[in-house]
């Protein structure tokens, strides 16, 4: 048996404070795509509009692949930790590691230190913007086709979080992310 905190995932997480609650996260990257299937573009600053989305993104414009469906897609987030695990083929679901760059995964915000799977039904703050966790994101075959990479299974259960925007504002990479308890 392997000692739990020696595992590649455990050894990284053990050094970080917090768990499902007392965590402190950070926004690493912001990406938007102007329309369905278009490559994601990185922004150094983005405007979040309550009830709508990120200005310039396909789900703000209503031109996304899934825009016609009633759903929560104003902002989508994914954990850098999940991307790191996939890049070391952990767990070994495919032939080898897959490098999924922040511009490739098609979620808007790449974050670190944020336990996204615990934030359904929770409010949290990214900089001055307040997001509401609506549902867990689910990987889609569409992404596999766009990337030409077998990412469906590796992303299962760590595909990120779909959120609504409660309070709009400007976000930037480096902004802190915190759970709101009140």
């Amino acid at each position: 048996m392997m000692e739990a905190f020696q595992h590649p995932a455990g050894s990284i997480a053990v050094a970080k404070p917090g768990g499902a609650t007392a965590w402190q996260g950070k926004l690493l990257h912001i990406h938007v795509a102007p329309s369905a299937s278009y490559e994601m573009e990185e922004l150094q600053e983005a405007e979040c509009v309550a009830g709508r989305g990120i200005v310039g993104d396909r789900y703000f414009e209503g031109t996304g692949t899934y825009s016609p469906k009633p759903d929560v897609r104003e902002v989508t987030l994914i954990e850098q930790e999940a991307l790191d695990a996939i890049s070391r083929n952990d767990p070994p679901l495919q032939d080898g590691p897959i490098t999924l760059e922040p511009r490739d995964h098609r979620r808007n915000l790449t974050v670190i230190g944020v336990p996204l799977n615990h934030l359904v039904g929770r409010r949290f703050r990214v900089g001055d913007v307040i997001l509401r966790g609506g549902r867990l994101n689910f990987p889609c075959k569409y992404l596999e086709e766009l990337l030409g990479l077998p990412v469906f299974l590796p992303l299962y259960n760590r595909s990120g979080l779909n959120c609504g925007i409660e309070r709009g504002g400007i976000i930037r990479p480096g902004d802190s992310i915190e759970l709101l308890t009140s």
Partner: protein
Amino acid sequence: MTARLIMKLRVANMRFTTPDVLHLQLVHPLRPALPEWSAGAHVDLRMPDGRVRQYSLCGDPDDRSRYEIAIKREATGRGGSVWVHENLREGNEVHISAPRNNLPLSDKGKRYILVAGGIGITPFVSMARTLARQNKDFTLHYCARSAEQAPLLAELRDICGANLQCWFSADSRRFDPAVIGPYDENTHVYICGPQRLLDAVQSALSAWPEEQVHGEVFQMTVDENFKPEPFEATVASTGQRFLVPADKSLLDVLRANDFPLPSSCEMGVCGSCECGYRDGLVLHRDKVLPTSKRQDRLMLCVSRARVSVTLDL
């Protein structure tokens, strides 16, 4: 159905390869390597008004730093080439999809015969390059009015050497499909060019199995005698039933009912909207599906059905 990424590329270089054919080199402003492709592939070019046109890649599949396309100005065409000629300049941004290949080189052949007419030469530049690299036995027959009006001729002479045979009408040399010779089980024939060239070669090779005769045409299926009739489509997974009226496509009706489906040319040539079906008598009308796939696949943009069809959606 295959979704493809759309990229904003930059026109790094453009020059006339003949008086009416522009040869463009496209690069990604941020990524050093573009999505990979193989000989025979094409990309979609999206114009600002939303129209989409397909162009074969005519560069080197081993060079991922750029895509090359060649576009003939066709004043009587559907407007795509005129837009490119009048609007695109070096340094401009152009919206290009990741490549798709509807005309892949078979790896089963020992001998390859490529027949191109005019601008139909474009997919054969990469094919000839690939065949030459693999030391395969091949001949490229290039039909055009004259050397001056034969796009990419200099590159092809470099790539093909003695494997290039030019048939220029100005020199009174006209291509005769008889030069392909009798049927040979190890030979694959590829044809790209005007419909009359495809028809001529395909009828000369009518005794060959269709797996060995490959053609590509980027133009609308024109059948003046076809009169669309309404029919009913059932979605296998949900049991939903939709009426497809005579003036709407399956694609139109499904999209109106919240099925997010990819498409591109919407005239049955690009293959983006391929979909499975279970039962029903399907009127295919596309130019992309091989006969072997028609029993259970159709193209949502142009295929219709008699009375009803069940879709694997």
